[in-house]
């Protein structure tokens, strides 16, 4: 019996590095962070409004979070491109509000810089995710869109496991809870999971959404498998999806 301790450690080291350095793992981790950031940003925005509502009451109705924070920093309306400048000017004029002294202004500036940094971080992460997907899985990227593709990778664990799944499982990814509940009570099963947020499904009615979800799931299944074989089939598949959608929309009008 001989035990070579060095060999064990060397092999474990190599395998850890190899498995943690895959693109799947990176996409999964980045999308986990990017999913939770909007919640944090919204919470911080509510907190900054506790202070700034004293100076600019109801301003948040007219501006997005990013515009609001930028406005707090430079106090100018020139950069904004909204059609409600008249209302905003009324609020800023200060008829019914207080003014900040120097210390308060400093606080607000720092706070809004932090929020803007978080927004930049979120955009960078999203960009990184879609770059990784586009380079490594071009078919999957085009048909599933980056948001849904990263979510599917998160649930299945890796692209290889996703490729082994049947299309009907891909259609229901993300709806496991309601699916097994429906099976248990023998009621209607769900028709879509994370695919519900796909941009092609937006303007279809309920019945056609289910049909379209099945179609997209089929095509995703083909796309993932051809990504592993390094074939490019996405343009063909995408055309079929668009044609099917037009068909369904025509039926809907009648």
């Amino acid at each position: 019996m001989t035990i070579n301790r060095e060999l064990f450690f060397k092999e474990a080291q190599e395998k850890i590095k190899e498995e943690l350095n895959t693109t799947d793992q990176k996409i999964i981790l980045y999308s986990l962070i990017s999913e939770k950031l909007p919640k944090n940003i919204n919470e911080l925005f509510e907190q900054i409004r506790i202070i700034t509502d004293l100076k600019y009451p109801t301003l948040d109705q007219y501006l997005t979070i990013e515009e609001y924070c930028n406005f707090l920093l430079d106090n100018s309306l020139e950069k904004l491109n909204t059609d409600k400048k008249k209302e905003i000017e009324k609020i800023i004029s200060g008829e019914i509000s207080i003014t900040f002294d120097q210390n308060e202004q400093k606080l607000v500036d720092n706070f809004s810089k932090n929020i803007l940094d978080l927004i930049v971080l979120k955009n960078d992460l999203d960009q990184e995710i879609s770059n990784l997907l586009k380079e490594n899985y071009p078919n999957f990227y085009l048909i599933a869109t980056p948001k849904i593709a990263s979510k599917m990778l998160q649930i299945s664990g890796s692209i290889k496991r996703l490729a082994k799944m049947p299309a009907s499982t891909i259609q229901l990814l993300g709806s496991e809870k309601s699916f097994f509940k429906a099976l248990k009570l023998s009621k209607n099963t769900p028709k879509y999971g994370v695919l519900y947020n796909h941009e092609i499904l937006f303007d279809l009615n309920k019945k056609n959404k289910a049909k379209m979800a099945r179609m997209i799931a089929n095509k995703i299944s083909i796309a993932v498998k051809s990504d592993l074989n390094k074939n490019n089939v996405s343009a063909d598949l995408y055309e079929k999806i668009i044609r099917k959608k037009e068909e369904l929309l025509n039926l809907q009008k009648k």
Partner: protein
Amino acid sequence: MILKNLILDSGNYYTTDLNTKKKRFWDPNRSKICAGLKKGINMLPITTDSKVLYLGSAEGYTISYISDLADNGVVIGVDISPISTQKFYLLCKERNNLLPILASANEPDSYKHLIDFKVDLIIQDVAQKNQVEILKKNADVYLKEGGFVILSLKTTAISQGKTENIINKEVEKFGKDFNIVEKKRLDPFEKKHILIIGKKK
């Protein structure tokens, strides 16, 4: 049951630490083997120089106590997750009888080039649907004649049916390859779990 490094003190179990030689508390809520001891298992088939293969080592809580008990032997931990093996790797560097393997316990041949000897004991703590099968596969390759196995069976990993039915079915499967020495439900500490100790036929 005579184990040099296992200490029973006012109902709780302790081990003597390998490096510092101090008393170390063994938490039955975190470790299924300690839960089994607390429920009154009569024998734990470990001696000071036994060679142990531990499947499902995770971050290395239970396996560190096993390495305390077998302080002159060898303890090898197998796990599939790279992130928990990172933590386990550091633990192995501190203890000179502990070794890490990053592989799937479902494929015992994938680490055959590392272990060229037979072990005395296999501990199976991987909560999978084919738990008994995994144990059998590994026992065929690595366990010596008359060696022992410890299986901690998680019934909810197998199916959502009645616990007694699943246990009966799995124990029957287990009995084909091993003689059952002892079995205990781990009820207040781990719900719907059973610890089975067997001997190779």
